[in-house]
Structures are given as C-alpha cells and as structure tokens.
C-alpha cells in the first residue's frame, strides 16, 4: 500500500477524544483527495480508548486507519516512535491526541514539505500559558537554537511534519523527541517553521520547568557530541587533547624559562601546570582511542546520519529526494 501521508497520534486515556479527533482529521484531509493513513497509537490506556478507536471505520474513502496498541504505558516519545515505525506514508505528521493541535493546519504542513523541506515544525505563537512556563521553554529553545544554528522557536510543539526517510533514521529514545529538529538540522535537513493554531490545554502540564534547562543543556551537549562523533569519531577528543597539549607546551616553556631566569625561584606553579595538563592531554587522547573502539564495533549504528545527509540529485530542482 502506498500512502502519501501518515498522521500519527499518540493516545493515552482519551476515550472521549478519539472519535472527535478522527472526524477532525478526516475533515481536514478529505479535501486533499489522496491516500492518507491515520495511525492511532494507544499508549497503554486504562480506559476504553482502544475500543473506541476500534469502533471507527478502518477504511473510509481514501483514508485508512491503522491502530497500534502498546502492551502498557510507555510514554509519549515511545508512542511517537512506534507510530513512526509503523506508518507507511512518504510524509509523516505527528500531533497531540488531546485536540490541542488543530488538524486544519495539516494541509499547510503538507504543502511546506512538498516545497522541498525535510522537516516542518509547528510554532504555537499565541501560547497563553503562565510566564513561569513560557520563559523556561523560551530559554531552552534559545539554547537549542544557539547550539544547532537553527533557531527553532518552539521545539515542544507536537505538530510536526517529516519526510519519512528522515524521521525513520533518527533514533528516538528517552526525551529525544524534543531534539528532533536539532538532530535533523545537524544532519543537514532543511527546516521550515509555521505558525499553528493552539487550543489551550485542558490539564496544565508544563514541558519545561526552570530545573529542566540544565537538563536540556546537558542533553544538547550529548547530542552534539554524538553527531560530531558520527562524522569524525576521533576528532572531538583529539581536538581537546591538542588544545590541552598546547597549554602544556606553553607552561613547559614558562617553567624552563623560570628555571633559567630566576634559579632561586623555581617555577613550581608552571611545573605543576605542565604535569597536570600533560596528564589530562594523554587521558583525553586515550579516551579518543576508546571512542574509536566503540565506533568500530558499532559502526552500523551511525549509518543513519550518513543516510540522512545523503541526497539523490536529479535534473529537477524539486526532486532532490530519493
């Protein structure tokens, strides 16, 4: 089966929302008149969510419904990852299951992808949450933007559209979904951002608290490392080792100079610095070798990044995608 578009919706205890959600999506995409697949992922709901979803028509016109059921609750990232894994469309769209995102935005996303973008991110520009939620989220987004060079204004928005081969190559684990734009931009994807309608949350639950910012910072550093590592495994540690070696060399010169210029006042400070930074440089170099070892045993795990950055060039400028 060939679908142009798969719409992935994770559902957790949404028995009342399933049917309105389905209708809203159907109305939004029926005008497209193209084969569309809706993927509902039941994230181990304890209510009648799955039964409600099963009662919906499997096939209605050009719209197909696929249900993925988890054995238990695994969380939103896992639900999205499962939906992405089992979706069969060329273009994938993810959205929240609680009707916070507006399905009428879907055609806009589709259009952007067909203009040639790899990833389209929704931006909830009229968020009306309390500042204590918005501010940490803004700081986190700013940090992510700085690190990746692509200033995404709203990484937390679930409504996103992807080219299927891009998102299927990105490993989604832990809280990785927040870094999808970051990861794909570092892998060379073209990213667009569009404003979306945002309905207020019925149950307030913030994505970022102030304490989260340092986590975002650490996660970001980890992800940048993995990405640079996937390109040149030893480069990161080697660069660091060389920088530290430079310090070692300078302080060594100073120590020797001290010994000549002022024999009574031995350069304890510089000798100490030399020994310390020298040992650090050697330590880093060996860590570089260790990372090389990991890389060579797990080389196929880093293949996605090469694939992500690979494009198939044809004579038509729009058809750069394989």
């Amino acid at each position: 089966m060939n679908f142009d578009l798969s719409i992935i919706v994770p559902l957790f205890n949404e028995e009342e929302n399933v049917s309105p959600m389905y209708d809203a999506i159907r109305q939004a995409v029926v005008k497209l008149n193209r084969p569309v697949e809706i993927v509902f992922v039941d994230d181990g709901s304890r209510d009648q969510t799955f039964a409600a979803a099963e009662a919906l028509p499997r096939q209605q016109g050009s719209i197909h419904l696929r249900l993925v059921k988890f054995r238990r609750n695994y969380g939103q990232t896992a639900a999205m990852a499962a939906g992405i894994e089992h979706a069969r469309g060329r273009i994938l769209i993810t959205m929240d299951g609680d009707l916070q995102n507006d399905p009428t935005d879907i055609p806009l996303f589709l259009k952007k992808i067909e203009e040639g973008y790899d990833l389209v991110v929704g931006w909830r520009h009229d968020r009306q949450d309390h500042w204590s939620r918005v501010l940490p989220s803004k700081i986190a987004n700013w940090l992510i933007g700085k690190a990746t060079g692509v200033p995404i204004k709203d990484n937390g928005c679930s409504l996103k559209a992807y080219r299927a081969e891009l998102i299927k190559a990105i490993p989604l684990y832990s809280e990785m979904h927040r870094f999808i734009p970051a990861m794909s931009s570092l892998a060379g994807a073209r990213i667009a951002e569009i404003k979306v309608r945002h309905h207020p949350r019925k149950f307030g639950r913030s994505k970022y608290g102030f304490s989260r910012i340092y986590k975002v910072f650490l996660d970001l550093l980890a992800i940048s490392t993995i990405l640079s590592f996937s390109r040149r495994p030893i480069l990161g540690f080697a660069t660091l080792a060389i920088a530290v070696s430079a310090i070692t060399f300078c302080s060594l010169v100073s120590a020797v100079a001290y010994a000549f210029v002022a024999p009574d006042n031995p350069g304890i400070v510089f000798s100490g610095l030399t020994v310390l930074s020298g040992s650090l440089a050697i330590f880093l170099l060996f860590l570089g070798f260790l990372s090389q070892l990991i890389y060579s045993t797990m080389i196929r795990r880093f293949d996605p990044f090469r694939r992500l950055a690979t494009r198939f060039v044809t004579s038509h400028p729009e058809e750069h995608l394989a």
Partner: protein
Amino acid sequence: MTKESLLSIVVPIKRDHPDLAPLHAAYRQALEAQGRSLQFIYVVDGPLEASLASLRTLKRQGEPIEILYHAHSFGEATALTTGFRHARGERIMTLSEELTVKPAELGKLLAASANHDVVIARRMPSEGGAPAKPRKFEYAANLLFGRRFSDLRASARVISQAVAEEITLYGHQHYFLPLIAETHGFTVKEVEVNAERRQRARGHLDLSLVLDLITAFFLIRFIKRPFRFFGGFGFLVLTVGSLITAYLVVDRLVFGAALVDRPALILSSLMIVLGIQIISVGLIGEIITFSFTKDHKDYKVERIVD
C-alpha cells in the same frame, strides 16, 4: 489449561537444605487452594548437593516440579532470572527457600496481582510480635528513589510475564525489582501479609548491598541519559575549580599575592582536570548508550490493527 490460569512459582535455593519436602508441601497446599494450575520451578544456585538430592527425591515421588541448577553460584537475582526464563505462566510468583511468609497469606498476593504488574509482600509481625522498625536499607533506598516501600527484601512477590521478559536481574537487583518495574511503567502494589515467625533483623548494610544500591540508583535514573549524571557532576566540579582558579589568578595579577604560597591552586587546578575528565567519560557513556539503544527498543507493540 489456559495460560491465564497457570501460575509459575520460582523458588531460588541458595543454601544446602537436608529436606525441602515440607517447604514444597506447604507452598503447594496453600497455592492449590487458590484453584490455579501450578508450575513449580526450583533454581539451585551452585553445587548444593543436599538440596539437589532432596529435590530429586521429590521429583522421583512424582511431584510435578522443574529443577534447574547453576553449576556455580551467581546469586539470588540471577537464579530468579533463570527461573523466569523457564516460567510459562502469565503470572509468576517468587518465594523464599525458607518459610518467611505464612503460606495461607499467599492468596492475598495473588488476589492483588489481578490488577497490578508487580505485587510485593510487606511482612507484618505475627500476633504478639513487636512491630517492625523501619530499616536502614529501605530507608536509604526510599531516600534515593523518592518512593515508599517498607519491605524491599521480602522475597514473596507476584509479577506478570511481561515484567519477567522485560527486566533482567543480576547482583542484588531483586531487591530493587519494584523500583525498576515502576520506572519501566509497570504498576506496583505492596500487600501486607503476616510473617511466619520473627525475622532476624539484618541491621547492618553490607558493602556489596550499598554498591548495588548505588548501581541501581544510577541505572534506574540515568541509563538512557548517562550524560545527565556525569555532566551534572563534571560541570559542577569544573565550575568550582574554574572560579577558585580565577580568583587566585586575579589575586596574583592585581594584588600580587604569590601563587607559590597557595595550596588552593593545586586543589583548583586538579578540580578543573577532574571536571573535564568526568565530562569526557560521560560523553563516552552517552555514545555507548546511543550505539546500543536501538537494539533494545523502548516499547513493545501488542498488536497492530489495520
């Protein structure tokens, strides 16, 4: 015999017992009263001749038990894992090699297991016994994990097959099973049961238990994001070291205080080095996690309906 009604019972045997028949009889009698078909699995952990001989005798007498045997000792958690791999029941009950819980009380655990993935016993003193004092181990564990379990070391538990498939135990990790299960998204319930007799209070925390506690803490909280652990520590040490160094350097350049006289310089520069080392090791950890993570996916799909 439907899968739902089958109950597997895993009993790890860690010591040499001259006669296990009374124990088996007690468990069997109590559990048969529950009206489910039973699969008894005894896992003998190490070369324990007497225990093995006693189990063999039981089997020869026609008891439908399965006996597994580790050629050398791996510890209780590994013995449990071995048992789980052979369990066919939808629910698995683990029991101790000694009667620590009144067998008649096991039904309570089973009843609770209908609605929960993991049910653990909380051993209450029998009539007349002194109420159990909160113990150091549980206190430390609850402090670290922010949970409230009062008897992590009770060996009577009921878990679902899904839990057994997903969680591999080793070391002392069986103590942390409820905590690990909770982080995997399973529901855990503690049920009060009467203890068989007064337990000898194991007051002290031995070293390996402390190490296991720390390991479990690290694994449960940070296995998916090791850099949050390493990076947090590393940047803390690095920042403190840099601040002290900056202060010392300014003091030297502006106020002319000789650095040679300051042992604080050794401390601060060592902290910088240590900080960088912890951060680098954490990044390696993150690379390892990343490299291996897709091999064991976060989720299991029960079914797909088209």
